[in-house]
C-alpha cells in the first residue's frame, strides 16, 4: 500500500523533473497570490489594522487544505507522512527571527513571497523589498560565524504539534480545523466592524 507519495522521495522522478514541477507550482502559487490581491502591500497592511484580514484567512485556508489532504492521503495509504520533510525547530532563534520578520512585514507591507509577486507585476515597493531581502540574506550569511551558536541553540529537531501536545494527529487536525473556522468567523466580524465607521472601533482607530 505504502509507497505512492512523496513521488520524489520514492524515486518516481528525478532531480530535473522535480525542478520543473517546482517551477510550475511556483508560478501557480504566485498567480493565485496575485489573484487574491496578495501582491498589494496596502491590502496586506490592512491585517495589522484589523481592517482586512485576507492574509489570516488565506493562511488558514492553505493550512487546513494541506493538513486535511496530507492526513487523509496518509490514512488511505497513498502518502508516507514520515517521508514528508518537517523543518527543524530552534525555539529561541526562531522567536527572534519571527520578530524581525514581523517588523519587516509590518513596515514594508509584504512578506518574502508576496514581495516577489508584487515585483513580478512591476510594483516598485516589491522590487525594493526583494533588494532588502537579498541584502538581509547577505548580512546574515556574513554575520553567521558570530551568531552560529545562537542559531543552533534550543534545538528541538523535527518537532510536531502531536509530539508537543501528546495528542494523536487526528485530534490535532480536528483542533486546528476548529481554530481556523473560529479565526474565519472572528476575521469576518472584525472586517464588518471596520466597514461601518458608524460604530467606531478602538483597535482600528
Amino acid at each position, binding site marked *: 500500500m505504502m509507497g505512492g507519495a512523496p513521488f520524489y522521495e520514492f524515486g518516481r522522478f528525478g532531480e530535473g523533473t522535480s525542478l520543473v514541477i517546482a517551477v510550475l507550482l511556483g508560478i501557480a502559487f504566485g498567480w493565485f497570490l496575485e489573484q487574491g490581491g496578495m501582491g498589494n502591500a496596502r491590502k496586506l497592511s490592512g491585517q495589522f489594522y484589523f481592517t482586512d484580514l485576507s492574509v489570516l484567512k488565506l493562511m488558514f485556508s492553505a493550512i487546513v487544505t494541506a493538513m*486535511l489532504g496530507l492526513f*487523509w492521503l496518509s490514512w488511505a495509504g497513498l502518502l508516507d507522512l514520515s*517521508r514528508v*520533510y518537517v523543518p527543524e525547530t530552534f525555539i529561541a532563534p526562531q522567536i527572534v527571527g519571527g520578530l524581525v520578520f514581523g517588523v519587516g512585514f509590518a513596515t514594508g507591507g509584504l512578506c518574502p513571497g508576496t514581495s516577489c509577486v508584487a515585483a513580478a507585476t512591476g510594483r516598485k515597493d516589491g522590487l525594493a523589498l526583494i533588494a532588502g531581502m537579498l541584502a538581509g540574506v547577505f548580512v546574515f550569511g556574513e554575520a553567521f560565524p558570530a551568531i552560529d551558536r545562537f542559531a543552533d541553540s534550543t534545538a528541538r529537531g523535527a518537532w510536531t504539534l502531536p509530539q508537543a501536545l501528546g495528542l494523536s*494527529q487526528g485530534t490535532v*487536525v*480536528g483542533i486546528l480545523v476548529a481554530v481556523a*473556522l473560529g479565526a*474565519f468567523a472572528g476575521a469576518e466580524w472584525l472586517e464588518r466592524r471596520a*466597514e461601518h465607521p458608524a460604530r467606531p472601533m478602538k483597535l482600528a482607530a
Partner: protein
Amino acid sequence: MTTDARRRPGIERALAVLAIVGGVLAVIAGSPARPTRGSVDVTELARIVEHEEDHVTAMELARWIRDDRPRLRVLDIRADSEFADFHIPAATRVPLAEIARMPLDSAATYVLYSEGGTHAAQGWFLLRARGMTHVFFLRGGLYEWLEQVMNPRVASTTPRAQRDSIRALTLWFGGKMTVVDSASATTTPSVLDGELSAPHKSDTRETIRKIRRRAC
C-alpha cells in the same frame, strides 16, 4: 474584503462543511500512521554487504565529521545512560525502535553505531528497508572509535605523513596517539582484523574512563 463581488457564499459554506467533516472524522480516525512497511532489493543488499560497502571505518567517520560532510547524521543506538557517558561528537541518540518510524531525509548520509557492531548493522538494514541509500554503520562500534580515533597506536615504521594525518585527526577529537614499536603495534588485538570479534563492555568503559581522566 467582505463585500468582494467575486465571493460565492454557497461555495464558502460547502468548503467550511467539508473542513468540519474532515476535521471531526480525523479526531475519530486518530492516527493515520499505518505499520511502516519497507521493501528491499535483496540481491542488491547482498551485493553491498559482499563488497563491504555497508560500513565505514572509524577513521573515515572521523574525517567526515571533521570535514563537515553535508547532511551527515550520526545515530547512536545505545542506551541513554551509555550515551550520556560518552558518545561520538555530532551523534544523536536514537533507539532502534525509533529508527523504524522517525522522519527521514533521503539526501542525508546516515551512520549508525552501537557498542559493538550488531545492533548498528540491524539498524542499517531497517534504514535500507525504508528506502535510504546512503547508510553506513561502524563495524567495530564505539570500541573501534575509541581504539582507532581516540587512542590509536601507530607503529614507528608508519610513514611520517600518514602518522601526522592520524595525529591531527586524533587531536581534533581530543584523543591521543601513541607511537609504538612496529612489533607491538601489529600484535595488539584489533577489532578490525577479527581477532577481537566481541569487544567486552568493560573494555569500552575502561577506555572511556581513561579518556575522562585526561579531562578532554
